[in-house]
């Protein structure tokens, strides 16, 4: 059991003829993901390593009606249109890898997705992986292993760091989701926690937060009320100064909101185990499971 994607997920790669799209389409397929087709406007009719390329999502869906997820490698200025196209075509999971998308564009397509009932993962995310079944992203697959720990993160490489710690310690993952590093992202900790809570294949969830915004505080409130499974949390940026963007556009402490301390306190109060170093995840899990 897993959340959002599994071995039955049929994937469309938007922007498949670009360098990144092409490379990762193949990498995902090698991992075992069912990459069914790709799109690049104006290049319909071509093939990329045997994967058919269409001009539009609708045309791809006409040919392959079971497509239910897409992954977007389209350049920032066209990414919002690509996401809107996928939402409009009724895809359930739309993963937006692209970074540097204007935030006004993000707000609009995330709102459209909400109305339509589509999940947007990202933007500016490494994607989502259900180890052994479906990799819908750009993460290095070897650090992940099939298992029963859910992983939710706002960060890319830090996720791999934690996943590697888990995997090395023998804790595989049910599904690992990168929420994305932008101030505005589609899926939230709360959305993902809800899905892991309902998932019979997940025993505990690790959340990797960072400074900026109050997504972790919201997660804490949700955990307190609705989550029965154990939650372990790590917050990056405890030592970051106020008012500076720490790499992610979203990682910024403004005024009193977004501090690591605030997040840690809220999570502790909600009953989560907050660890100080990524490496401590192993020990924390051993205590719990």
């Amino acid at each position, binding site marked *: 059991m897993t959340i959002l994607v599994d071995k039955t997920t049929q994937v469309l790669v938007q922007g498949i003829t670009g360098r990144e799209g092409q490379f990762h389409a193949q990498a995902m397929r090698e991992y075992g993901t069912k990459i069914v087709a790709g799109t690049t406007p104006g290049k319909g009719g071509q093939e990329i390593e045997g994967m058919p390329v269409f001009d539009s999502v609708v045309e791809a869906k006409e040919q392959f009606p079971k497509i239910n997820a897409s992954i977007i490698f389209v350049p920032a200025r066209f990414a919002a249109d690509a996401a809107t196209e996928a939402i409009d075509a009724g895809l359930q999971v739309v993963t937006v890898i692209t970074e540097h998308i204007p935030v006004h564009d993000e707000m*609009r397509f995330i709102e459209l997705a909400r109305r339509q009932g589509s999940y947007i993962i990202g933007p500016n995310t490494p994607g989502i992986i259900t180890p052994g079944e479906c990799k819908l992203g750009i993460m290095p697959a070897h650090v992940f292993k099939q298992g029963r720990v859910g992983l939710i993160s706002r960060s890319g490489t830090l996720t791999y760091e934690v996943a590697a710690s888990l995997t090395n310690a023998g804790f595989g993952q049910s599904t690992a989701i990168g929420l994305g590093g932008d101030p505005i992202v589609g899926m939230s900790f709360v959305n993902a926690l809800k899905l892991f809570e309902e998932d019979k294949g997940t025993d505990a969830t690790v959340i990797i937060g960072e400074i900026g915004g109050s997504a972790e505080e919201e997660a804490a409130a949700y955990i307190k009320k609705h989550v029965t499974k154990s939650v372990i949390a790590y917050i990056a*940026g405890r030592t970051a100064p106020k008012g500076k963007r720490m790499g992610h556009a979203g990682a910024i402490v403004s005024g009193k909101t977004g501090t690591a301390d605030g997040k840690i306190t809220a999570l502790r109060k909600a009953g989560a185990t907050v660890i100080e170093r990524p490496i401590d995840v192993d020990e924390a899990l051993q205590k719990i499971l």
Partner: protein
Amino acid sequence: MRLFEYEAKEAFRQAGLPLPPSGIATTPDEAAKVARELACPVVVKAQVLTGGRGKAGGIKFAKNPAETKTKAAEILKMTIHGHPVQRVLVEKRLDIQQEIYVGITIDRDRRRPVVICSTMGGVDIEQVADEHPEKIARFWTDPVLGLRDFEARQIAKNAGFEGRAMLHVAGFLLRLWQVFIKNDAELTEINPLIVTKDGTYIAADARLNVDDNSLFRHKALAERLSKGISEQTELEQRAQEHGMTYVELQGNIGIIGNGAGLVMATMDAVKYYGGSPANFLDVGGGATHDRMRNALEIVISHPDVEAVFINILGGITRCDEMARGIVDAQKTLPRQVPIVIRMIGTREKEGAEILEAANIPFLNSMDAAAKRVVEHSKEGVK
């Protein structure tokens, strides 16, 4: 990016927002000339890309052109929070009856623009939010439908405006919404929006921060930035030109990594083991050896740096590329400092060979590396 007040006001003007008569000046004489043309008491305002200029003495009143010249000369000599003043805005001084706050920013958690309005303008809105939360009206706009007239009126009413005042303030909110949308704003505000003694509504100050990611739609701003005119420090700018993020800190250990979360965690680990980061550099995803070379150069340019911690977790980023960048950089670096490398992931083996061939040691554990770099940094201090 943050806009100068006079740039923000130009955007306001295009949206039809009423502004005080004004002129821009780069010399005291020009300032005096503007004051003569305006023929009235004026206010001389430093144009800098930072907040708090009022407290820093960057806003002064003048009764006549001669006084304007003196005040402008004073302000043009100032450096406010590290920003030398190169221009002043000379504006007609208004007869203030009331000061109002209106602003629009982005609420991350609700994923929507939030329109903010208060009868308590002219002071820091965050302070009002703390001390008089009941004095602030907030409205979360549907990003697809935009702000509608009736919503703007309701916001103004909720903030405490009635009758014609409500209609006036709503009009400002709607025009400010146009500014927000047209300029891909992260934040735009009028503080204060002034009601003069004769009942006119005027945007006395203007703030507008534009989303960097949207600059392909705002060519003029992109061009201004490309000339190096921005709120960033020189090193921040150099990093940005290479597609990297650089942040200045207080300590003596340079931190480089790939991925913002990882670099923050690295910084936290350094602190955990008793060290103190001097700066923060995220090389981003899929960096090339060239970028790593630049990263090292930028980090070491900071004079306080006495040791560097490079933390690479290879995903799309390849360890061999990073290793090559480090080897290249070491040949040309202006000065030698101890460099501690932690490297795992994609092409780790190839990267290791490159580093070994150049006699550069590296570790696999982030914590071990953090401990080591802290030791180095303390040796330096001795």
